């Protein structure tokens, strides 16, 4: 720390604050050295380092110094500006300065976290801090630009997360466009039989909400639809949705279901039916589908494939079948977007030694959910693949594709609990059957979850701690004939065990959607290593994203159970409702402007602007920027041959000053170029 220092005349009085971030920065970078060194910069009058600059004490340091030491500029060297630029701008403002007279040096994400080389990290930190100081001297006061928030919202994904968010917003009086890829809303929750640990009937608690969505005047439900393009920014997104042709006229269809009944083409339902039941070529995924209109699956429709059939058209009492129907492109504007696109189940075929797809009586968890469901293909009877034989013994294998370096390293969070639920359902349906749960660790955090586990211990489930090595039908001993043999090490007993059972259920984990990456690009946001959408902050902003106006909810952000998903749906809705009730949001004043008296009127910039924000004044023969349209990309600034376009907060002077500062330790062997 230094005492007050006189700054040479004409120079700014900069205060520099180097953050330790606990040991996140100070563990790698010598913060004391950086802080002392920057004092030698002639513009710096105060230089301090502090444990947590983002804490209220840290922020107060800035405020106090502005007032007491007459600072005119502030630099904080800490984390990414995407993390705390707003925090420190506000602190600067509270101190009495314009918030844009602040600059941040990113010495955490870009430096201390990115290397183990302490010496190099310290040198780099000096460069980044020096660059910020050199830059901030050239900052000018700016005012944020208010932008109106369109009160409509788009929600993508009609599972329980999207449904919750849609209802919250609609009931608050805001209009929602709910876009769902499938023919009905409901998502994975509609496939599930019972929910853990309360054993509520999943459909009984979900379908009333689906009906509410269908009936709410504030919700425009776009099913069998996908988002085609997203333009714009918070407050003003322009959306195009492709409403795929379902070949059914929604105005005429009464959802009577006769077409489905009479359709001669049976199709294996590997989506809602999880591959163990059949649907028709014209179908509703399940009877409570919302909306109730069926979808005609052209790829499997006899008429579309062979040109003959048209049974559905003949039987439809309202002539609602329309084979000529085409995809519709629907365009609308929204202020905010919530992504609730859900998850894919891990494909158990990827673990060949577990035999799924090869051994008939190895089922996935979703298949078992469908089987045990009273509205499922077996009417809720647990039977082997032959459709009649009740199994006498069932093995449930936890952590399939989860907690496994070969597949997904993370824990899918719900599998232990739903495996316990399966064990319970087997006891309920087949009291005589033996149930073996193979687990690595039993993970039951949640209200009533551990208690549910204890209940199962008492119900007589056999718990075997060990990861299953192989499931095979190759019998070696008497009694194993015709059975599935589960080979695993029982790590509590320290022995290898072979266990012959009739049925195996693989508790597959949760994965990011196969197209999550494409979706993230469409919405210009990030995915993590596993393909789940990145939240703005893992602790403090779990449903916001790095893109303002775009929020995430549910399993698209990471594995989670129904209560957590519902909570996130509500949280995302309340974030949106907050913005709607604010009515306006303040935008960064990063905008271009042309010094008209110096403009040569060459018009190079006119065609470069992606927003047509630059107009040419025919009378004065000069160009000018329409501020309301400018988004501040700066491509015109880079292109202007006369150098008379200024990009606010990213001027040539500011960037070149930053460049000069960042190269503090290297020697230029030519004179510096003239500034432009």
């Amino acid at each position: 720390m230094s005492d007050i220092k006189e700054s040479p005349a004409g120079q700014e009085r900069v205060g520099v604050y180097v953050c330790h971030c606990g040991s996140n920065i100070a563990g790698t970078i010598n913060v004391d050295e950086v802080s002392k060194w920057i004092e030698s910069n002639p513009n710096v009058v105060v230089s301090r380092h502090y444990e947590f600059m983002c804490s209220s004490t840290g922020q107060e340091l800035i405020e106090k110094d502005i007032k007491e030491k007459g600072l005119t500029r502030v630099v904080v060297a800490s984390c990414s500006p995407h993390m705390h630029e707003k925090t420190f701008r506000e602190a600067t403002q509270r101190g009495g300065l314009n918030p844009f007279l602040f600059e941040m040096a990113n010495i955490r994400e870009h430096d201390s976290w990115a290397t183990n080389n302490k010496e190099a990290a310290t040198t780099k930190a000096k460069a980044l801090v020096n660059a910020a100081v050199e830059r901030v001297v050239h900052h000018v006061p700016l005012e944020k630009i208010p932008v109106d928030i369109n009160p409509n919202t788009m929600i993508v994904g009609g599972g329980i997360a999207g449904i919750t968010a849609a209802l919250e917003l609609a009931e608050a009086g805001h209009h929602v466009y709910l876009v769902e890829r499938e023919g009905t809303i409901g998502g994975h929750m509609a496939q599930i039989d019972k929910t853990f640990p309360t054993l509520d009937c999943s459909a009984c608690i979900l379908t009333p909400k689906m009906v509410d969505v269908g009936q709410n005047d504030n919700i425009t439900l776009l099913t069998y639809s996908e988002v085609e393009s997203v333009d714009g920014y918070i407050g003003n997104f322009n959306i195009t949705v492709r409403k795929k042709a379902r070949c059914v006229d929604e105005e005429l269809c009464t959802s009577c279901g006769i077409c489905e009944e009479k359709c001669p083409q049976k199709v294996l339902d590997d989506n809602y039916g999880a591959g163990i039941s059949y649907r028709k070529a014209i179908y509703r995924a399940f009877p409570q589908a919302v909306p109730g209109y069926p979808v005609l699956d052209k790829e499997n429709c006899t008429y579309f494939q062979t040109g003959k059939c048209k049974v559905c058209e003949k039987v439809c009492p309202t002539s609602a079948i329309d084979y000529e129907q085409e995809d519709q492109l629907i365009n609308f504007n929204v202020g905010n977007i919530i992504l609730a696109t859900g998850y894919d189940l891990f494909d158990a075929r990827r673990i060949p030694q577990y035999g799924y797809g090869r051994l008939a009586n190895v089922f996935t968890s979703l298949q078992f959910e469908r089987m045990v469901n009273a509205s499922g293909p077996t009417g809720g009877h647990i039977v082997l693949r032959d459709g009649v034989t009740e199994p006498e013994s069932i093995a449930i294998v936890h952590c399939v594709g989860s907690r496994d370096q070969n597949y997904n390293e993370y824990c899918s969070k719900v599998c232990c609990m739903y495996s316990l639920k399966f064990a319970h359902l087997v006891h309920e349906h087949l009291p005589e059957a033996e149930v073996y749960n193979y687990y690595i660790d039993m993970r039951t955090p949640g209200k009533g979850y551990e208690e549910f586990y204890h209940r199962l211990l008492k119900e007589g489930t056999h718990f075997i701690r060990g990861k299953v090595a192989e499931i095979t039908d190759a019998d070696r001993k008497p009694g194993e004939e015709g059975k599935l043999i589960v080979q695993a090490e029982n790590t509590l007993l320290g022995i290898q065990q072979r266990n012959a059972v009739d049925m195996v259920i693989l508790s597959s984990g949760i994965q990011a959607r196969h197209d999550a990456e494409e979706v993230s690009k469409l919405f210009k946001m990030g995915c993590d290593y596993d393909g789940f959408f990145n939240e703005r902050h893992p602790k403090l902003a779990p449903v916001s994203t790095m893109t303002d106006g775009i929020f995430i909810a549910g399993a698209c952000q990471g594995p989670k159970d129904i209560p957590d998903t519902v909570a996130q749906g509500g949280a995302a809705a309340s974030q949106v409702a907050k913005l709607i009730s604010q009515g306006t949001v303040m935008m960064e004043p990063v905008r271009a402007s042309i010094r008209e008296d110096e403009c040569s009127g060459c018009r190079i910039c006119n065609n470069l602007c992606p927003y047509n924000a630059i107009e040419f004044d025919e009378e004065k023969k000069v160009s000018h920027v329409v501020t309301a349209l400018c988004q501040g990309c700066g491509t015109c600034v880079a292109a202007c041959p006369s150098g008379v376009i200024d990009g606010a907060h990213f001027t040539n002077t500011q960037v070149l000053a930053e460049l000069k500062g960042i190269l503090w330790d290297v020697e230029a062997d030519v004179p510096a170029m003239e500034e432009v």
Partner: protein
Amino acid sequence: MSDQFEPVIVGFLCNWCSYRAADLAGTARIKYAPNLRVIRVMCSGRVDPQFVLQALRSGADGVLIAGCHPGECHYVNGNIKALRRFTLLRKTLEQWGIEQERVQLLWASASEGTVLAAAVDRMTEQIKALGPLRWSQKVLGGNGAVHPVAEEV
């Protein structure tokens, strides 16, 4: 640092994709060469070729320009404009004898922390192999006399 030549690379990273890729690399604790020093710009289309030249003249051994993938630009197509300028600039630099590895253009989305880190490692190795830039010898002919072409830029 050891006696071994450690190049200094200046990075101009766009705010929406590549700067966040660098943030993500850090957050994920991916370790990569500490030789990159990042300057944030709103869009790769903001990178005036002059910034690159000024960086090289001021002693940087390399410049990395990084932006969103084509088709994913936050500002519609600023990255394509960056690509056009980069192509012309690299041609000019080549004529001055500046190796093309020294000025690189990279597409790295906000989720591609690993891509960015790998690119920095690769570029650092390439420039280490080339050695320091020595702008005055290359562009000014070694005698301090200003090369006529260089002066016009």
